[in-house]
């Protein structure tokens, strides 16, 4: 294992993050604060509580997940797309590094950044509403697994994309709707029965449900199913990345 290489890539990517620290952190924090104002205070004041949790507190896990999904995908997809776009990828391809090492470096850095953003949002949320985390370790596990899984997913998009528009299109067309309909702002138990069933096809439901359980011990689906689904998505992403590298898809000519 070429650990120096993994570290070099990781540090390089983190340096990029810290160079743009202001915007990296400002935008998710501001948008989260906006959600609190709109959904937490303005609308939330008309909803007393969901399953015994005040509405403001109820949406915190969903908001964090929303940011983690977006951040992981955009960080990782940009991280690998940019060297392809500028041509600096030549160095990665000519270096004595395995694909596993390249992936560890890029995905590790992207996931680290989304974790940081997730924790900052958690802290920001603490300023608006009372927070209670029943199972901190489980919460951390969900955060880490989700960051990694969606960073892998972003990595795949970054390799697949052949233009800046394509980097945007999947997050915009697929992830944002799934995240919004995945129970960030409501419990799917509040939906009519048919929509509850349909929602179960949405992978994000499982993420948010499990994550919320680690806070309030309230969930839409069982905890073990949530954990299983996170692991399942991760396995799919790892398999796709492995396949990409095996075939050199979009990387080598």
């Amino acid at each position, binding site marked *: 294992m070429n650990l120096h290489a993994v570290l*070099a890539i990781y540090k390089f990517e983190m340096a990029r993050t810290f160079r743009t620290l202001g915007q990296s952190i400002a935008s998710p924090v501001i948008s989260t604060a906006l959600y609190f104002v709109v959904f937490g205070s303005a609308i939330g004041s008309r909803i007393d509580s969901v399953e015994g949790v005040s509405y403001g507190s109820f949406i915190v896990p969903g908001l964090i997940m929303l940011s983690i999904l977006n951040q992981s995908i955009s960080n990782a997809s940009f991280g690998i797309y940019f060297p392809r776009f500028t*041509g600096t990828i*030549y160095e990665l391809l*000519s270096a004595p*590094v395995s694909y596993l090492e390249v992936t560890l470096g890029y995905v590790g850095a992207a996931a680290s950044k989304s974790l940081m953003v997730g924790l900052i949002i958690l802290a920001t949320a603490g300023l608006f509403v009372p927070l209670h985390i029943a199972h901190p370790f489980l919460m951390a596990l969900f955060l880490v697994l989700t960051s990694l899984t969606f960073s892998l997913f972003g990595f795949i998009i970054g390799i697949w994309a052949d233009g800046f528009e394509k980097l945007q299109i999947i997050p915009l067309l697929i992830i944002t709707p799934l995240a919004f309909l995945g129970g960030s702002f409501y419990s799917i138990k509040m939906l009519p029965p048919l929509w509850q069933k349909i929602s179960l096809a949405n992978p994000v439901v499982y993420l948010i449900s499990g994550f919320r359980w680690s806070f309030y011990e309230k969930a839409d689906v069982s905890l073990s199913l949530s954990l299983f689904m996170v692991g399942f998505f991760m396995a799919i992403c790892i398999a796709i990345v492995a396949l990409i590298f095996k075939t050199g898809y979009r990387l080598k000519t």
Partner: protein
Amino acid sequence: MSPIISIHGLSKTYKGGFQALKNIDLSIQPGELFALLGPNGAGKTTLIGTVCGLVTPSEGKITVSGHDILKDYRKSRQLIGLVPQELTTDAFETVWNTVSFSRGLFGLPKNPEHIEKVLKSLSLWDKRNNKLMTLSGGMKRRVLIAKALSHEPKILFLDEPTAGVDVELRKDMWQQIQTLKDSGVTVILTTHYIEEAEQMADRIGVINHGQLILIEEKRKLIQRMGQKRLLLDLQEPLAKLPDTLKEFDLELLENGLKLVYSYDSQKEDSGIADLLSLLGNQGVKFKDLKTEQSSLEEIFVNLVRKS
């Protein structure tokens, strides 16, 4: 000595069916400086790319210091530094960071002294804290060379190192490449400047339409180049060459109106003086004379045109 790079039966067909390399065989000896010449689109970059891991070969086998570039890629790539043709840099990085990054990527522990030495040798030391986007094109080129040298490679590929570099700096760069070669690094470079190959290379390869059409030691090419011709325009046509001139390499052209003498300009005695006095004795008069030399350029152009 066993070659440090050996390429056997290498072909590359790009997606879409274009065949950029056709059955290339090439061996590079340790420590030699090999210049690859060829017109645009000949396949120079593709050839370098396959050895370095950027392009997947369609057919054939390549070993670097005995390591197969596909099966043993870690060992083979460890030995190679690549300076690409395109100036691709991370605009926002500093010179120091980008060069240190390259070293890490090649699996080596930090070594600030080495990086310092490399940057100084390329006159980049003053710029070490500059962002790459603030550098000129020639400086960026040198940063790419510094990156390639950061991991102390045994083999250096330079894809048109002096494209877009001014004359002064080009001479500097030749000097630097020479110094590298003297330190034992094997250098393979591509160039469009024939004088560059002439100046530096031990051997010269010419590639066109994906085929290596010539591999020869520069010395031999220069010998070919050393061939000069003396052209004499005669006043009266000559029916045949007089027997007394047998010992000279002569040719009659244009119905006997032109006499061509081929000689070796490298030799001490060109034989011109003898020839002219003998011609005078024979009563052969001429109106005009001139000499011609075939340059490497001409050899190259002829080769490329023929292939």
